[in-house]
């Protein structure tokens, strides 16, 4: 009798563990999809500002304008605080997910989200500022 009851308790513990793994994996997938969606939206926002033909002096200099955008982005990136640069490199260059980056930097995953969104905001503002100066 005691043996059977222990076996059933073991079943409950095993199912709880299974549920934890299922919830953890689903959460990871969901967060990764959120980051990808956020990236796509912000990049679209930037390209709308810069690739609008009306804003260009002539259509023939479009290629130079792309180079300028790259340069402006590089300059804006260089001006970011060290920690934000590190977070962007981990997420976009090393293709880490937020949880891995948090582990690497020894901080909370919410800090990564904060640095990530603030860094993108600063870059966007810097690029928009550059666009205004250009006009």
């Amino acid at each position, binding site marked *: 009798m005691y043996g059977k*009851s222990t076996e*059933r*308790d073991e*079943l409950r513990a095993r*199912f709880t563990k299974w*549920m934890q793994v*299922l*919830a953890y*994996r689903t959460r990871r997938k*969901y967060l990764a999809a959120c980051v990808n969606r956020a990236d796509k939206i912000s990049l679209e926002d930037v390209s709308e500002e810069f690739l609008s033909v009306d804003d260009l002096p002539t259509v023939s200099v479009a290629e130079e304008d792309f180079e300028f955008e790259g340069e402006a982005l590089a300059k804006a990136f260089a001006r970011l605080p060290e920690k934000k640069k590190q977070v962007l490199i981990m997420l976009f260059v090393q293709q880490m997910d937020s949880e891995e980056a948090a582990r690497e930097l020894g901080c909370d995953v919410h800090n990564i989200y904060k640095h990530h969104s603030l860094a993108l905001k600063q870059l966007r503002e810097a690029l928009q500022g550059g666009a205004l100066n250009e006009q």
Partner: protein
Amino acid sequence: MNSKEFQRLLSKAISGDNDALADIAVLYMPLINRYSYIDGKLDEDLRQNILLELVQSISRFKI
């Protein structure tokens, strides 16, 4: 719920009984909620995803 009742409920849920599955979901809601918080707020979409994953995967759990 004692462990014998739990085993019976889980067996029914695994074999496709929707009422049993709903009971399992209710029983594990605190755990599901715990994993559904983002930035201190409960993310309803994430909670739905976890529930959906439970519904789709429970038949693969081996008793």
